[in-house]
């Protein structure tokens, strides 16, 4: 199998779900009503991925708000803060760690099992990594950043084990904060290792929009089987460095800019894949968007994914790859 296609995790929520979430937060829609619409949106996204022929699926995270607070809401010792500004007129809530972290029960397994039941293709289990959870949280309890990151790693390891027991063969652990503090990269490796230790599934870590130059020497040290990188937005320059210092693991190569409304042309995507093929062997090269697509509209996300799958198919045909 070569040039398998996949996605990073999130897909946009259809307008009916966005409206329902707003109603639910005001107490105007009961939990069951929201859940039914989250399931409908998940079904639609699974069906879409199957229709266009994506190889490794995601559930699209229709039931998650923010990637960090989703876990905070389901952990003991963790609360959710008031709103803080990200940029412009965008605000988000952060986890607040107020006590020892505990996982009263599995967090993602129910949704994963339900969504995997909709498809015969593999569906990724999706976790937010321990370093990112730590970096994006207010820490009112643990004595140091390292202590908090390792406490998150402990509960996330238990979650990954539960996903594996439920049948997940691919588990992705997102670390978008990986390059936030370059003096803490050893801690990223240590905390991620505490999550993936002893797992039999294929493990992936995704990162994006960071200072890749500084992080580069750590890529081979990250204790996962596959590295999922945003490449089309800023990373194509990195290819030469990968030529000089080969990656010793699989790579999922982002070929779709998730921050642009513009749908990439087939030529543009083919060119990106061809350039990646100059460096990476096709059986270790996966094709996906730069990052989660949740900030795009449903129509934009669908058009971008269709273009990605179609361009990948063209490249495979022209090279006689299977």
């Amino acid at each position: 199998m070569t040039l398998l296609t996949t996605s990073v995790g999130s897909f946009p929520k259809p307008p009916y779900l966005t409206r329902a979430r707003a109603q639910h937060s005001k107490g105007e829609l009961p939990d069951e009503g929201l859940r039914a619409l989250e399931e409908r949106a998940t079904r639609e996204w699974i069906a879409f991925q199957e229709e266009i022929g994506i190889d490794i699926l995601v559930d699209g995270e229709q039931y998650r708000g923010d990637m960090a607070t989703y876990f905070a809401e389901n952990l003991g010792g963790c609360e959710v803060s008031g709103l803080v500004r990200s940029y412009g007129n965008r605000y988000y809530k952060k986890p607040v760690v107020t006590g020892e972290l505990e996982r009263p029960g599995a967090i993602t397994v129910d949704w994963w099992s339900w969504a995997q039941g909709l498809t015969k293709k593999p569906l990724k289990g999706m976790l937010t990594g321990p370093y990112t959870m730590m970096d994006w949280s207010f820490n009112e309890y643990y004595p140091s950043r390292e202590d908090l990151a390792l406490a998150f790693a402990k509960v996330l390891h238990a979650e990954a084990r539960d996903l594996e027991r439920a049948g997940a063969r691919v588990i992705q652990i997102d670390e978008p904060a990986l390059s936030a503090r370059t003096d803490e990269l050893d801690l990223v490796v240590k905390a991620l290792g505490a999550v993936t230790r002893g797992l039999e599934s294929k493990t992936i870590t995704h990162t994006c929009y960071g200072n890749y130059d500084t992080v580069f020497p750590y890529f081979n040290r990250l204790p996962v089987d596959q590295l999922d990188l945003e490449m089309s937005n800023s990373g194509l320059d990195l290819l030469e460095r990968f030529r000089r210092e080969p990656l010793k693991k699989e790579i999922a190569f982002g070929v779709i800019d998730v921050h642009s409304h513009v749908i990439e042309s087939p030529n543009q995507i083919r060119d990106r894949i061809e350039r990646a093929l100059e460096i990476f062997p096709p059986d270790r090269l996966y094709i996906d968007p730069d990052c989660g697509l949740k900030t795009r509209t449903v129509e934009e996300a669908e058009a971008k994914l269709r273009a990605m799958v179609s361009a990948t198919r063209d490249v495979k045909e022209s090279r006689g790859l299977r």
Partner: protein
Amino acid sequence: MVSTTVVGSYPRIGETPQEQRLRRALAKFDEGAIAEEELRSVERSIVKEVVEEQRAAGISLPTDGEITWYDSQSHFARHFDGVEVNGLVRYFDTNTYYRQPVVRGSIRWREPTVVDEWSYASSLGAGPLKAVVTGPYTLASLAKSGERPRHETIREFAEAIAGEVRTLRAAGASHIQVDEPAITRNLKDVKLLVDAVKTVATERGTAWLSLFLYFGDVAGILDELAALPIDNLGLDLVQGQKNWKALASHGCEVPLTLGVIDARNTKRDDPRGVARSTLSLKGKVPLAESYVSPSNGLEFLPREKAREKLRLVSETAKFVEAGL
């Protein structure tokens, strides 16, 4: 007497619908549903609220909360010639983003950036209000300037910020602060910073001038900073833990703004404990002429926590005063 101040930014929205009116107004403005004057009027009502919140908490030298700034970099760059504003980039190690200035030609001050905002906030009365500008070294460090020699970019930004300081002074600003967080990441650049701040200081006239350095320590360059033509030196004593030891061992003759209340974490600081640590500097630094403040701008906290931190600043200052 030990006084109280803030570093600059303040959360612009809170949890209640009333406290979220600026967010709604901006969304409506973006949709073309309200005119610019209406947006400005909402902004000003927030500035008024934020200034009153600071004064009510006992902050004797407040700011306008930087409520109208898009971010600390592009807000200035938009008013300078020779600089364009580009895509989003992570702001230091925070999970917030700024629009990156890109230098295209000679950088020149074109028009006032913060003067109107300062004038309005200052007109609300009840004592002096500190004007804040981003420093030239930080503007140059966070901008993209291609192959241009770095010292030239810093010098041109310094002249542009000097232009802003000149107009602030002409408008009546008596207290001006220059923020230079980027130097905490690159202490070896101290010579570049010193030259840039000197350029800005040429336009200070009789205004009180403070230089604030947050997001880390400046322990290795305290002597150079203390020799600058400034009236006050602001230090981050939370992320910059090494500053404590440097102050204790070298001392400092310049009055300080002591950033001792943690502005990056919601955890409640212990004002008695913080005051004890501060008082350990007695005899080494001019505490009686110094200010107590948060460690950096408060916009990284939810509004209700920022409010609490203001109160903690005041409580700490009272304990320090009592111990002098």
